[in-house]
């Protein structure tokens, strides 16, 4: 996928109300591979921390019998992180405020994530 196409995918998500930013993360090392600005935060921090949660969750998922994971969500008082697996160990990670449309965001993240590789 070209950089312009990645930009376009990220823009589809960050255009939603309440979305603070989006990052494509390499789950193995927690590095941000591609990012849009994450409002008020360092994208690299979001990437590293989200990757740590995703790794642990994937480990638990395997123990629970999941051959494939679709979506991992961390909900907190002042925000929600959604992460969905792309290809080749990439994860698409989105940070949203509490007022964001989570239902729509879940669909979009799940649809777009497989395109990142």
């Amino acid at each position, binding site marked *: 996928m070209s950089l312009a196409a990645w930009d376009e995918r990220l823009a589809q998500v960050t255009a939603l109300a309440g979305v603070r930013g989006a990052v494509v993360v390499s789950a193995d090392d927690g590095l941000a591979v591609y990012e849009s600005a994450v409002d008020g935060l360092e994208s690299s921090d979001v990437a590293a*921390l989200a990757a740590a949660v995703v790794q642990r969750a994937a*480990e*638990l998922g395997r123990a629970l019998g999941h*051959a*494939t994971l679709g979506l*991992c969500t961390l*909900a907190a*008082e002042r925000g929600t992180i959604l992460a969905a697996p792309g290809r080749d160990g990439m994860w698409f990670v989105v940070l949203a405020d509490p007022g964001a449309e989570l239902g729509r965001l879940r669909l979009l993240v799940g649809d777009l994530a497989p395109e990142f590789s």
Partner: protein
Amino acid sequence: MHTPPAFLALGERLRQRGLIDAALAVAEAGAARFPMLAEAHDLVGRVRADQGDEEGARRAWLAALECHASHAGALKGLAFLAFRRRDHAEAERRLEAAVQAAPRDPALLRALDRIRGARPRPADAPPSIDDPASGVLLASGDGLRLGGYLDARGDEAAAEAAAAMAAGVAREAERTARLLDLGAWRHVLLEGNAGRTAILPMPGGVLLFSRGTSTPAGRLLTAAERAREAARAWLGESP
């Protein structure tokens, strides 16, 4: 292609004609001859259920699950028995597992709709931590299992492993929420081909709540909150 042994069709025909004793003789002889064939035990279960022998039927269907953990017929049978004794939570959980095994079976989907419609209001039916079918697992902050199972068969080893890993997820969730200034974490929701699992913080530990993919995410989270309340009470009562 594998041809099912002839006794299965014969036993089922006898059962449908009401020749229950003959059907049972055929089914039990077949199950003895093919002890690893889930369909044989499933047939025994159906005949026993027709006889009104619920314990015998339950044993047979559990034996079928030993042979084939996601056998839809056995899961449906166990759901039927649970429904009969008004254990709607187990009935729903068994049917969800059956639907996962046979997602296009319209009879199973109808049965699941019926059981959901017949189920008491959620607030009236808190999950039982001690019931393997409840799908609730409690772990301490350092990953020791406090109680519950994630598997209707009550697999202790799997529950211990899941408890250890869930504590790791909780630690990372807490750290991430703190360092990104997101406040206290409320849950981690994990969704995959095998179902949905919510991980919720509890005082001194973590709760896992699992359901099949047919349970919507929002409903799962609502039920998980209720399970946490039940777990708090259970921990207060446990030795």
